[in-house]
């Protein structure tokens, strides 16, 4: 499973593109203190903990656990 | 203590090693090259680092790195090279790092000449780099004083965490005199701010001169200027001779002061009430000391090896209370005792 740091994420969406399970998306409901709409995991059940999202994240906003 | 005959530049280099200078970075330029040559021969043998850099700019930044990592570091050059170092000096001042910079002056501007000069007075005391900052500037007038001031320069730099310059010149650098190296136990203060690895025992140190918030930058400069106030209180030094009753005070520093001294002695023999005031620190300028030396003075004569630079500071120090005249030779020319004596005699005639 992944945890995305809401305040650290800048919504660059790079993680959404590398996720092999297509379970990360940018949410547009609520922006963080910096004003960014952030990435969120839409289905953590499907996460295979490959850490590709964490590796591409420029803001080390993603923690991956297994 | 043993007296040895030494060249000014070599004496400075030896004194630097004895004062605990661990790293020297420089680039060849006349007339300072003997400093590099002497250190190249001796530094590594005594556990220090000598490195000839690819440029003056690199040399001063190597000094920045070494100073930031907590060791005593020095560079030396002459006018054109000092100009190149100005970037690094500003960063060193802005990062509150201690180091010693030697300028063995030659004539300028531009490539100028390679003969002795004092034409970098303004550069040293006013504007060696961008931004609000100062360096302490020592002006030796003999080989012995070059040695003594080298020890002092490292201590002052460490104490106030600021760059310190020894403003020598081609004459002092190249001449030989008998000297004694003081038997002082060198005490280098602890530097808890240094970047040498935190060993997982303290938060990480940052050496930096960037402050993007105006208030932070203003505060950091204000804090530095508070230290300059202590420097101005405690560091000014000067030598006065025959000033008690002097109606004419000749003011000169460094090599020019040696000539002025002979001229003053000659004039005294002729019954002229003349004294000599020799600043040993150019920043801070010895304001109170010159005021004291000029108590009986009717006129001041500044003798310099330039077009008249220190004369500004004398006028400022005396608040233009007295007329301040100037005599100088430049371009590598050294004023003669005869020329200076003639100036003193002419002034003496005029003020009768």
């Amino acid at each position, binding site marked *: 499973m992944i945890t995305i740091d809401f305040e650290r994420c*800048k919504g660059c969406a790079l993680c959404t593109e*590398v996720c092999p399970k297509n379970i990360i998306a940018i949410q547009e409901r609520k922006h963080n203190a910096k004003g960014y709409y952030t990435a969120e995991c839409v289905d953590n059940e499907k996460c295979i903990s490959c850490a590709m999202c964490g*590796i591409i994240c420029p803001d*080390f906003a993603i923690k991956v656990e297994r | 203590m043993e007296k040895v005959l030494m060249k000014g530049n070599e004496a400075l280099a030896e004194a630097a090693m004895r004062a605990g200078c661990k*790293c020297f970075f420089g680039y060849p330029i006349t007339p300072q090259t003997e400093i590099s040559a002497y250190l190249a021969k001796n530094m590594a043998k005594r556990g220090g680092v000598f490195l000839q850099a690819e440029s003056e700019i690199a040399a001063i930044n190597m000094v920045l*790195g070494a100073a930031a990592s907590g*060791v005593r570091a020095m560079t030396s050059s002459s006018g054109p090279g000092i100009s190149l170092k100005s970037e690094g000096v500003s960063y060193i001042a802005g990062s509150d790092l201690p180091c010693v910079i030697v300028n063995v002056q030659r004539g300028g501007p531009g490539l100028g000449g390679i003969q002795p000069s004092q034409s970098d007075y303004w550069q040293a005391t006013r504007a060696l780099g961008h931004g609000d900052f100062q360096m302490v500037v020592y002006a030796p007038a003999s080989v012995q004083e070059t040695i003594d001031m080298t020890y002092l320069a490292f201590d002052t730099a460490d104490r106030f965490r600021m760059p310190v310059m020894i403003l020598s010149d081609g004459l002092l650098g190249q001449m030989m005199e008998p000297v004694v190296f003081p038997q002082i136990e060198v005490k280098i203060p602890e530097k808890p701010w240094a970047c040498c*690895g935190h060993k997982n025992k303290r938060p990480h*140190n940052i050496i930096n001169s960037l402050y993007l918030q105006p208030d932070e930058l203003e505060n950091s400069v204000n804090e530095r200027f508070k230290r300059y106030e202590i420097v101005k209180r405690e560091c000014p030094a000067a030598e006065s001779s025959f000033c008690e009753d002097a109606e004419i005070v000749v003011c000169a520093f460094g090599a020019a002061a040696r000539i002025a001294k002979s001229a003053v002695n000659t004039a005294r023999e002729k019954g002229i009430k003349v004294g000599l005031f020799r600043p040993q620190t150019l920043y801070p300028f010895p304001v109170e000391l010159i005021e004291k030396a000029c108590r009986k003075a009717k006129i001041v004569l500044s003798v310099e090896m330039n077009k008249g630079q220190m004369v500004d500071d004398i006028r400022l120090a005396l608040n233009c209370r007295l007329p301040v005249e100037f005599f100088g030779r430049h371009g590598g020319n050294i004023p003669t005792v005869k020329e200076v004596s003639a100036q003193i005699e002419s002034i003496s005639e005029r003020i009768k």
Partner: protein
Amino acid sequence: MSVVFEKPNALCDVSMHYCPGCTHGIIHRMVAEVIDETGICGNTVGICPVGCSVMAYDYFNCDMIEAPHGRAPAVATGVKRANPDTVVFTYQGDGDLAAIGTCEIVHAAARGENITVIFVNNTIYGMTGGQMAPTTIPGQITQTTPYGRDPKVQGFPLKVCEMLSEVDGVALAQRVAVDSVAHIKEAKKAIRKAFDNQICRRGFSIVEVLSTCPTNWGMTPSEAMERVRTEMIPYFPLGVYKDAVVWEDKTKG
């Protein structure tokens, strides 16, 4: 639950100032991971450049010095010579390293200075708002090449790894990219090697990282990654340009 991936300890727990999608963060993280893996944080001194990564001193958990523009290799030399047991790295952009600091980098390399250089090449000056860099590709539009870089007027880009591979003091010159997970993994290995070289006193190591600047390129982060693949890598081919031992380590058998 066990942690598979998280922020390395050698990075401070702060949010960085970089623009969304800027790959500086990925490169910072790789450097920090290597510092963690090799256990050298307490013994490392990093040198920041002038440019977008000037404030890296607030992000790395080791001692940090901010150098004048382009002078990081000279500052690193001072630190390393004064304290040879510290691990010293510089982190420099293309303007810093390949324009104003060309002299310092070439001579640090020529001396075989035992330091690690992370060279971030995104073919543009980011901090000042997108001007031509020494690595700007022919035809590339920037603020100061509004009609595209014309080699007849502005000359050609510098290929730093190729140039430094001819310098005797260089132990490692390798170009990597961060446009994909696979490339990031390769880049990490190169950075690890550049630090290992220093720890084993093998000489000067430089890793050139092809990076992005979505803001000044006028692209989305995703488009910027695509540009690395389609425009940058063909002009600046990835690979190991030099891998040698300059100095034999006398401290180890």
